[in-house]
């Protein structure tokens, strides 16, 4: 899915947005434009400002500087209940005193929708998240995954223009998480709605989002489609936070045939070359001594040191023979795999 962020009015636009807590600049000059219908991930470690950005969109926080628009409408000073965005909270925030049906119908009730109509819409919303028939139960009687679906139905039933999800899969176990991932994605596609989700899990961001914004220390350090963020990390931080990467200094990159710039090198781009085999075109071959091997199922992760003292991590097929600590191996590094990093940080 290719989205032109420049033409249409963005679903969400930040211009120089700042939010301070005391002396801490939680959000420190963020610019972003999220396209309508986009599945947008805000990825970063805890304290990087991603959750505060989500709360700024929802209206739970107000910016100290800068400008925020939702579908062209300026929202600074607008309380959460006057914004056409809804949130799925990390702890789901289901009302414990209300039944599942009344939880979902809550947003309609406060808007003055009649009992029969809101019950019908709540039933439909629950059916959409595959929870038909649970209307009369209490949230406490549901499993974690079911509660999350209720929270989703409750947010979607009021037809928001943007759906915000705060670590939506954080509290679920692995199996359920994978299931919810594809379901969220399917739901977003079916509804054509703008989803903005916050996560610290790079795998989640890469697999679900159309575009990923990587946050560090209150700023966005890189934003782009998952492939771009992963393949061409702009900074050391992105290279290390999104997946794992070898970070090479300018001279080291040049010695392997890359540009004389600090560069990143993904471990899976490094191949093992049999002793005596000729080096292919455009590939640097270096000898290195294996210092550690860890088996990770499909791959073995090999840590090796070259003669000039460069430590490289390589992911090689688990079937590769003769890779044990202390052995000398030949590492093949394609020059194209060395990705120069422009940005600092």
């Amino acid at each position, binding site marked *: 899915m290719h989205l032109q962020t420049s033409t249409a009015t963005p679903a969400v636009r930040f211009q120089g947005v700042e939010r301070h807590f005391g002396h801490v600049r939680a959000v420190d000059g963020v610019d972003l434009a999220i396209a309508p219908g986009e599945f947008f991930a805000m990825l970063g470690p805890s304290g990087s400002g991603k959750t505060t950005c989500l709360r700024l969109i*929802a*209206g*739970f926080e107000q910016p100290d500087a800068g400008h925020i628009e939702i579908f062209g409408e300026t929202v600074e000073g607008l*309380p*959460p*209940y006057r914004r056409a*965005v*809804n*949130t799925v*909270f*990390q*702890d*789901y*925030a*289901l*009302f*414990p*005193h209300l039944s599942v049906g009344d939880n979902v119908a*809550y*947003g309609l*009730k*406060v*808007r003055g929708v009649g009992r029969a109509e809101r019950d019908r819409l709540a039933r439909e919303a629950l059916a959409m998240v595959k929870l038909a028939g649970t209307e009369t139960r*209490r*949230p*406490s009687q549901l499993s974690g995954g079911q509660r999350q679906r209720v929270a989703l139905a*409750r*947010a979607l039933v*009021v037809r928001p223009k943007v759906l915000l999800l705060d670590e939506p899969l954080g509290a679920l176990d692995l199996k359920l998480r994978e299931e919810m991932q594809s379901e969220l994605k399917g739901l977003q596609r079916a509804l054509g709605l703008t989803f903005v989700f916050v996560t610290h899990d790079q795998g989640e961001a890469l697999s679900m989002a159309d575009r990923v914004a990587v946050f560090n220390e209150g700023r966005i350090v890189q934003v782009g489609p998952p492939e771009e963020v992963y393949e061409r990390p702009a900074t050391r931080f992105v290279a290390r936070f999104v997946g794992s990467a070898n970070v090479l200094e300018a001279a080291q990159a040049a010695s392997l045939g890359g540009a004389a710039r600090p560069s990143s090198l993904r471990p899976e781009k490094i191949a093992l070359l049999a002793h005596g085999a000729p080096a292919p075109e455009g590939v640097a071959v270096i000898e290195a001594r294996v210092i550690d091997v860890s088996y990770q199922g499909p791959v073995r992760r090999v840590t090796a040191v070259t003669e000039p003292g460069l430590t490289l991590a390589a992911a090689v097929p688990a079937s590769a023979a003769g890779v044990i600590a202390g052995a000398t191996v030949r590492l093949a590094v394609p020059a194209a795999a060395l990705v120069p990093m422009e940005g600092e940080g």
Partner: protein
Amino acid sequence: MTRAPLSLKIAALGGLAFLHVPLLFILLYCFTTEEKSYAFPPPGFTLKWFGVVWERADIWAAVGLSLKVAALATVIALVLGTLAAGALARARFFGREPVSLLFVLPIALPGIVTGIALRQAFGMMEIPFSVFTIVLGHATFCIVVVYNNAVARLRRLSPSLIEASMDLGADAFQTFRLVVLPNIGTALLAGGMLAFALSFDEVIVTTFTAGQQSTLPIWMLSELIRPRQRPVTNVVAVLVILVTFLPILAAYYLTREGEAVAGSGK
């Protein structure tokens, strides 16, 4: 589960007896025929004191005043205590700790200090003693009970519930009515009942802030000096036990159930 040794059981029973046997004596002497002293065993039994109480207007005036004062003080405490709890439960601001201490202080302060302080304050402001001054005096400690109950429940409530409500389109009043109140309702009921019971049998602060009116406890105190018709006070005392004990019992059961509900939020 281990079984308690016999000596511990006897000690526990002794403690309970020490606390509650005097109450049984109050009940016993409601029915005595001897009206000048409490001789044991009572020389005879009669129901006539209940009739006497029924016909004495001063008792019913005192009961009426006490109920009125307790009801008003409880209403004031519910409104102000809830507001204070709302402000202090979550928010962080300069002076939060001293303010919450000041809120709880009146219940720790000896009633006599509160009483004198209020009496002097009313005197300086030239406010005549009336039902209103008694109510204000009682409200000082009733607020604490409501506040304590409400603040404990609010702190257990997930703060994202309030955000979720506003996120879904509810303004502050709707959020309070539809989310906050249902979740702290039982705590408020319990706090209100406790406040009512505290106010209903309060003597010390009342002594300092009442004018000519006498509440039920004040009436009983003055009755003790009279040599005749002693069992009348016993009958009234039993009434007081009923009026204060039943709400406290109800409050106990309500908060116990409330915990099961409030704890299931996550």
